[in-house]
């Protein structure tokens, strides 16, 4: 089969790989019909996530048609399913508590050592996202093996298009959980850093959850326009003093909740960020955290901090004093995708959530490297790339 594979920094290629096979009883094999490039794939593209090997197949946002099932799979051949990026067993302590991304059993044992050493506990499993999360082949390919296919995949009703439901795999639940973690109360102002896919879904979710005012911060004019479409006010950080603006837009209180939908590769020409960029170039595993630092300082006293943005390593100059002295609550984590898929599918069906607005480009799998390059270099216009392995 053909698959998009990682070969090094800013080097991805479409190669020929052996087709996947059923290896465990609960596996299924999908023929991929749509798969998206995620903002977090750009962290892999930039080589800032450790644990990648040349030839790894990327892709953790995908859907397709079931073509083969193991004896314990509950799926049937011919069904169309969207697959959560988190590989979760459904039976361990964490899955039972609906903390699916913390699943004990999705990440193969020998792959758990690295994250156990880095983080104190092993990470769960995920598709196409380095050997820290299992070294699983991703879905930017013609076919993909899906472990625990009786727990993760959600069957899509007839009549719904791929484009409407594909983002149930990651960015829609991620934006939703980000807003949920902001614990929105009536009258709240929620500030969202980053008008990328997750930030835009967080904006939409925060509005649905009843925020009085949602303010989105970015520097790409087109992306900020998309945020405005959902009723957000916007701040362009290249033109405006962000913290001052946030104070002035909240009657001198500051946002009640802040959401960092940027993560480890924050932009901004300020001292802390310049130092972070240099460090990240020297050592993978060092994070850039300008957006998060700004969010912590902007958040009102006793406010809430939600961090869907991806971090992988260490961050220094962390404003711990601001966190403690202002009494901030922080909630973060990889998304517990399986917890949200059914509710969000219903909301899409009922027209409550719009997902297709985000897609700027549809490409064939063979054109995936172009998709990566432009999604990386032309963020203003290339808001989301969906690959169609069966042809556009």
């Amino acid at each position, binding site marked *: 089969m053909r698959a998009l594979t990682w070969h090094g920094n800013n080097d991805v290629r479409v190669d020929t790989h052996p087709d996947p096979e059923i290896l465990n009883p*609960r596996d299924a094999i999908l023929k991929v019909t749509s798969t998206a490039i995620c903002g977090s794939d750009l962290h892999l593209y930039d080589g800032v996530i450790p644990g990648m090997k040349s030839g790894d197949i990327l892709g953790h946002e995908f859907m397709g048609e079931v073509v083969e099932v193991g004896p314990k799979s509950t799926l049937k051949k011919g069904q169309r399913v969207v697959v959560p990026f988190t*590989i979760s067993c459904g039976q361990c*302590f964490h899955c039972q508590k609906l903390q699916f991304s913390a699943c004990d059993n999705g990440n193969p*044992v020998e792959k758990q050592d690295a994250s156990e050493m880095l983080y104190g506990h092993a990470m769960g499993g995920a598709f196409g996202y380095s050997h820290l999360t299992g070294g699983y082949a991703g879905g930017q390919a013609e076919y993909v093996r899906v472990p625990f296919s009786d727990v993760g995949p959600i069957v899509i009703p007839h009549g719904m298009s791929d484009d409407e439901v594909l983002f149930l795999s990651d960015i829609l639940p991620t934006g939703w959980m980000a807003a949920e973690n902001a614990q929105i109360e009536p009258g709240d102002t929620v500030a969202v850093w980053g008008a990328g896919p997750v930030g835009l879904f967080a904006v939409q979710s925060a509005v649905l959850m009843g925020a009085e005012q949602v303010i989105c911060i970015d520097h790409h004019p087109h992306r900020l326009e998309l945020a405005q479409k959902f009723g957000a006010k916007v701040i362009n950080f290249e033109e405006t003093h962000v913290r001052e603006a946030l104070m002035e837009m909240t009657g001198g209180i500051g946002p009640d909740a802040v959401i960092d939908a940027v993560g480890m590769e924050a932009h901004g020409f300020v001292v802390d960020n310049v130092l972070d960029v240099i460090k990240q170039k020297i050592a993978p595993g060092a994070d850039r955290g300008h957006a998060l630092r700004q969010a912590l300082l902007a958040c009102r006293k006793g406010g809430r901090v939600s961090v869907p943005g991806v971090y992988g390593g260490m961050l220094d100059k962390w404003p711990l004093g601001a966190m403690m002295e202002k009494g901030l609550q922080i909630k973060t984590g990889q998304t517990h995708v399986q917890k949200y898929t059914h509710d969000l599918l219903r909301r899409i069906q009922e027209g409550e959530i719009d997902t297709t607005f985000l897609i700027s480009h549809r490409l064939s799998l063979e054109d995936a490297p172009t998709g990566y390059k432009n999604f990386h270099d032309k963020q203003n216009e290339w808001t989301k790339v969906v690959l169609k392995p069966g042809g556009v």
Partner: protein
Amino acid sequence: MTQHAQDDAPKRAQRDDKDGDLALVGKSVTINRPRSELFAFWRDFTNLPTFMHAIERIEVTGDRRSVWTIKAPGGQHVTLETELVDVVENQSIGWRSVETSQIKTEGVVRFEDAPAERGTIVTAEIAYEPPGGDVGRLFAKLFRAEPNIQARHELKRFKMLMETGEIATGANNRSNDGEH
């Protein structure tokens, strides 16, 4: 000398983790399954190679005795004959190498209820004394390098198998072990 409070940590977590002359390895894991089910699976020693990847097979040779065939580098094998010493139904299984065995080792696995219906806490402890000679050196090489990691891996595989019915693998297909 001031009297110190007794440390509640298990011996295997203490800085001095030797048990007399024997090196001690031990780990615990919580498994979301009933105690009796886990005990029954472990009690049948022929099941152990399904999650202990260093062991190729275990043959039960008598009521209490079994012969373990352990994989060694270069396609070699080491055998170890053990006898059960202490079995408490649904609680613990103890074994040790027989006197004629080339390797001196003993082990115990305990099963206790975890709090608030979280399942069962399984604790395995293995003590061993690598003897002199080639076999001993080989055994030391096999298990001494990172014996704690090995014990942790085996218990995690046991947990995966018991909770999910399978052992997770990131391999892309059978001809490829995921190390591409």
